[in-house]
């Protein structure tokens, strides 16, 4: 052991060196945000809770109950019921997404041929009651307010 090593070990050289890195962050730029007060908006492609899209003018849903999303869903968590409407066309009666099973893969959005279902940027949906995670048609239509992207882009 040379003089240098003795000097190093008696002065806690490594600790000082480590602390110098730590110290440099006292003056550097802050990288964290205080979450509930400040928020970082998610990116456009973010896959949050789904919504059903309605036509902005007529208010009618784009969805025509074709069951593609329910079939492609890897965890079988979309439940669709349809019946024959007054004019003979298919009519969507209920559209339920079971969020307790959903894995947020985005396949439903991708496969839908009518751009009727989309992933929004909503991610805060914790609840004390599991029944709140069974999303109904009305809830999903309401959730359009969280949709911040332009569909049909890809």
């Amino acid at each position, binding site marked *: 052991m040379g003089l240098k090593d003795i000097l190093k070990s008696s002065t806690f050289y490594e600790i000082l060196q480590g602390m110098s*890195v730590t110290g440099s962050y006292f003056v550097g730029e802050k990288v964290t945000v205080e979450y509930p007060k400040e928020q970082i908006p998610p990116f456009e*492609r*973010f896959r949050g809770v789904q919504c059903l899209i309605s036509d902005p003018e007529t208010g009618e849903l784009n969805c025509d109950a074709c069951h593609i999303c329910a079939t*492609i869903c890897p965890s079988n968590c979309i439940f669709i019921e349809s019946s024959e409407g007054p004019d003979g066309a298919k009519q969507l009666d209920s559209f339920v997404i079971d969020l307790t099973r959903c894995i*947020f*893969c*985005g396949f439903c959005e*991708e496969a839908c041929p009518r751009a009727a279902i989309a992933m929004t940027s909503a991610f805060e949906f914790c609840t004390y009651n599991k029944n709140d995670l069974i999303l109904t048609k009305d809830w999903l239509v309401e959730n359009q307010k969280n949709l911040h992207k332009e569909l*049909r882009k*890809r």
Partner: protein
Amino acid sequence: MAGHESHPTAPPKPRATPEEMRERKRLSRQRVSDDSEFITVSMGPQHPSTHGVYQAVVDLDGEIVVNTRPNIGNLHRGVEKLAEVKSYHRFLPLTDRLDYISSFAMNHAYAEAVEKLMDIEVPRRARYIRTIGDELCRLSNHLLWLGVHVMDFGAQTFFLICFRDREYVMDLWEMLCGARLTHSYARIGGVAADLPDGWVEKCRAAMEFMPRRLAEYQRLVEKNRIFLKRTVGIGIFTREDCVAWRVTGPSLRATGMERDLRKTEPYAAYDEVDFDVAVEYDADVYSRYLVRMKEMYESCRIILQCLDQLPEGDYINQDAPSQTFPRKKQVMRDSAAMVQDFMQTFRGPKVPKGEVYKAIEVPKGEMGVYIVSDGSSIPQRLHLVTPTFYHCQATPALFEGEMISDVVGIFGSVDIVLGDSDR
């Protein structure tokens, strides 16, 4: 590569040679035979140092580990069985949940195997995007590993520093595919979507800045006496052991074996970029750290090269309508694409009869997918050969003859994630 010169790898004390290691293991085996009293300690399954729900029941002679009984399967979800009831497309998101730290690499391995079975081409642009994705996974996986590994030795702050920089990679992923952890980004025949606007610049900026951060880590870790004392010469696992137990990835390369599937059996765009295989020769915990550190520098280099050479073109194969999904844009306009979408969803892809095995190099080692197809749109049998399973099975041999206080560090150094081993 500028980063490579900054490797001050002079070890502070002579390392244990493989001969010494074998002697140590032999002595510990002798202890088993001369029936001395052992203390049995159970580590895990819910202990922060076991990195997941892994239980190791160790027999101790004093402080020396004599015998280990690993106990895995606490996270079993029956993924392989689930594959037998889902079409090839619908199984893809479930591969995210294997090694959830580097999910895209898992998607990629699965997609490569299915493409090999169907014999379809992947467009060149998609291959480049996949290469970038794989390397981003490697980077985020190794950053997480590094933080946790150093935390095992008691350095709490370092974990947060690694997580700060991992965040840049996570942001890139979120921008690219919409998820931070479970990417589901690969598709059969390509990837899910093209690179978004501004992504290339953002990625390039992050990759140019990352080597500087890595050099900072090296400054913190490689000169730290505690870290060196607890890693150098500890947990030696020789090349023969690695081959016998099928330990792959950085742990194998730390023994001096240049086996890297990216080089030996190039897939995606690895044959079009220039990179070195990180190799070390001492086979101890410190060498495994060095290999991963070098791999991170190499990852940045590969990504930068891919961004420079990124070709134009499609991101998903358009010439195999009976195997792949159409692009969403077309589905809205074109009725043929809509029918294709319909058929892929309700009937699934058209697959020939046969068997394939395809392995790729994921951050933790070699990940293989074995598919037996009977010609229908769901696999008859799908087997996932995941690296962590083999790393867990090697733990008795790894721990044998080591001190109990080193077990945590050695276990961390082979890099495991239990979702991968239990499936």
